């Protein structure tokens, strides 16, 4: 294994992991998520301010 081939293989794996479908099927990443939960002072029980860090969604 030459350094060039090893680097190429590593880059290839990284590119594959950029594809959402590959990530989901191979690593089951969608089953695990990280969320930041912030309760503001006016929390009325209707909803949380959930920052979905894994999907980049705006706080609800």
């Amino acid at each position: 294994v030459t350094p060039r081939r090893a680097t190429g293989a590593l880059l290839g794996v990284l590119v594959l992991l950029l594809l959402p479908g590959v990530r989901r099927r191979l690593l089951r990443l969608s089953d695990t998520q990280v969320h930041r939960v912030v309760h503001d002072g006016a929390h009325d029980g209707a909803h949380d301010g959930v920052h979905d860090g894994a999907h980049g969604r705006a706080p609800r």
Partner: protein
Amino acid sequence: VREEDRVTDTVLGAPAARPARRSSARGPGRQDWSTWPAYDAAVTGFRGYWYPVTWGSHVSGTPTAVTLCGDKIVLVRDAGTVHALHDRCPHRGIPLSLGDQQFPGTLSCAYHGWTFGLADGQLKAVITDGPDSPICGKVSVQVYPVEERLGLVWVYVPIADEAAPPIDAQLPEELVEHDFVLGGRIDDRRGNWRFAVENGYDEGHAKYLHRTSLWRLFKTMPTWNVTRIVPQGRWIYRVQDEVHWTADYPGLGTWTNYRWWKKRPPEQTFNLGNTGAATKVDPVIEAQQFPGFASLSVPGVLRIAYPKFIHYEFYVPVDAGSHRYVGVMVNFTGGLGALRFAAKYLGGIRWLFHGGFSAQDAWMVEATDAPPERLYRPDSSLLAWRRLCEDTADARTAAATDAPGGGPA
């Protein structure tokens, strides 16, 4: 505490009692769970509770089918709000989850275009019967209350047609008011939900079953403990009175989880975490003043408090033979601390803890075959859980009977 619940001197603070044993002609031990009729009957879970069913980001305008407490349910997100309907078209029994949205605020069956309102479940239109279909307004499907909390979609499974109680009253108290970052994993698993709960709260298994997990590679697990169960509010807590790291078994030899590469635990007994006392405890966790590090509440919420984080397990009943594991680790921090936690969770914890460690539990839950069962001293934790279920069911029945409109407490 009923006499038949006593297998140790520490169940719910009861005085020393002779170990109970239900013998019969069929053999020693318990042959059934008739001692706990409500628990025994809850094969597909307790109704009248909120359950986390999936991540909020997994629910979109495309219908998602889930099974909860034996009920087939379809989830749809419309204008940002998640709705839950019984997943069965009354026409010919086709799952509505096979359909799609033809109009805003509705879901149409894939077969003949029966179109139901997401908010009330009423039949709004039948596409293949024209705009004046006489059946409209005469047919409906059941709708389920839905909330989004902790990044998860929660569905309330009613007992009858009662209004859902506030979800905040069912969430662990410390998660309602505080800010935090959480990492979680959802996993569909085989085995009845009650086996999963009992495994989670099982006092004896963690120190033995999990001693080989990579998550505990550098942490010594105890050999055996002396514990008691303390009820407080809607939770039961397991309090450690003695922690033994090594023991001599007569005629067999010494057994310990000590290894040269593992961190040596402190000598004193502690009640946060199960691998050693901490020098520093998170202020939010400290403020809760948990009597013990492992606690459990109905309908199957396990809380394991460590010095710097809390781990929760929600055991969601699917049907008689399977459940959904929702494991959540919470760190009461923000800013850079939240980023650090996210990196640790996504990079390691989800594999080591919510993956490998928890998979050992899944392995045992799937293989559990009880009753009949022959319980031993540490199983006082299981008996306390079953009694909690009975007491809670009794209280809810009494409250429903007293309430003018009925419904759960």
